[in-house]
């Protein structure tokens, strides 16, 4: 973009203010997510340079914070990729993989698969909020507070949904087992 001479001082001043506003905040972000070999100040500098280069192309003001986050993430992943590339050169190849466990026997495997499918079906039938909380708890091992923060709910609500989800699953699976026992016995 070509600026007229009288616009330049205002532009420089504005960029200076933007720098002053964003630099400490970006530093706070990068300092909290650092990996070995990365300097937070470098990442901040690269992010700000990208912001200054592209800010005039941003059309919707509501996108600013999200747009800034995308830039910060890109800067960090590029730095991580560079670091991995350097390590690949320095470190020899990975050790041999562990041998896989022998597969279970046919009948036992079928029973296990049926049970797994029954549990998955019961999970799918849970009310959405209960299912969401349960998946984050079991798959990602998140504590209540983090589940709450992730889904924008209160920890108390998460606790209640999890308790209800477990109770429902126990009840459903017990009922399923009883039905199976009846049909096998008849």
């Amino acid at each position: 973009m070509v600026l007229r001479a009288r616009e330049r001082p205002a532009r420089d001043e504005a960029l200076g203010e933007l720098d002053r506003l964003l630099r400490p905040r970006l530093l706070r972000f990068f300092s909290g997510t650092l990996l070995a070999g990365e300097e937070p100040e470098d990442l901040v500098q690269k992010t700000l340079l990208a912001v200054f280069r592209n800010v005039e192309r941003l059309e919707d003001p509501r996108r600013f914070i999200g747009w800034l986050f995308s830039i910060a993430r890109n800067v960090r992943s590029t730095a991580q990729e560079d670091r991995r590339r350097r390590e690949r050169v320095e470190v020899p190849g990975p050790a041999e993989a562990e041998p896989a466990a022998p597969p279970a026997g046919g009948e036992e495997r079928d029973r296990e698969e049926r049970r797994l499918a029954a549990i998955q079906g019961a999970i799918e039938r849970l009310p959405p909020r209960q299912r969401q909380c349960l998946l984050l708890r079991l798959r990602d091992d998140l504590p209540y507070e983090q589940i709450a923060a992730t889904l924008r709910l209160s920890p108390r609500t998460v606790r209640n949904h999890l308790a209800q989800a477990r109770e429902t699953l126990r009840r459903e699976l017990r009922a399923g087992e009883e039905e199976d026992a009846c049909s096998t016995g008849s």
Partner: protein
Amino acid sequence: MFDRELRRAVAALPSPEGGCIDSERLVAFYTGAIAEAEAEPLREHLAACARCVAAAAEARRFVEAIDGPSARQVPRIAARWRLGWAAAAALVVLAVLFLYRAAAPAPPGEASRWDALAIAKAPYPLPDPDESLLWRSGSGNVAGRFAEGMAAYEAGDFEPAARLLAKAVEESPRDDRARFYLGVTLLLLRRPAEALEPLERAAAASAAGVRLEARWYLALASLQSDRTERARAILQGVAADRQGSRAQEARALLARIGEPSPAPATP
């Protein structure tokens, strides 16, 4: 044993269909810039996609790191930028203003054209089946203070209601329900600038019923405080929320506000 089985079943669940949530939407979700109706599919995806959970944690850290006291400096910067730097840069300032709600209130004594806007009382209690347990929060004196405040509110005695509800909020700062009714009461007392802060915080409440109603009253308070653009943005969110009870009213009010005024030309 049961937990181990559950974990195995969850680990074997198929990955979600469709693409992951992009960074900008994640940030919008955590800054509250996304309407509740749009937030639900994001929650669904987060529950099913471990990759997005990791990205979400990063987005939350980012939002926390970016927010802070120095955001208050922004209005001053905006004033300097009137010199006429590129329009996009001015928009950036507006974006920060929008997100941090740091704009200065309208000067006292200056009448807003929305002063005469008819504002109805918020119903009590709010219908909110999903979060009903939260309504039992608070105990002893705090719960008593809230009940007294609401009795005054119900009777239309808004001055004592505001005093009692402010006390309830002071004693139980996490009580979003008391904060919400305090904001509504202040609005009914024609003190919209004071209503902004409690309503802002109630609009970020975890209880959906409080959050949705607070957004509507926050829009009204913004309008009466001469923050038309902020009001418009909130109303657009409320109008887009098809499950919300205020969607129709929000659309009608948006039509009354009219289109945004054109951006000033770059010299």
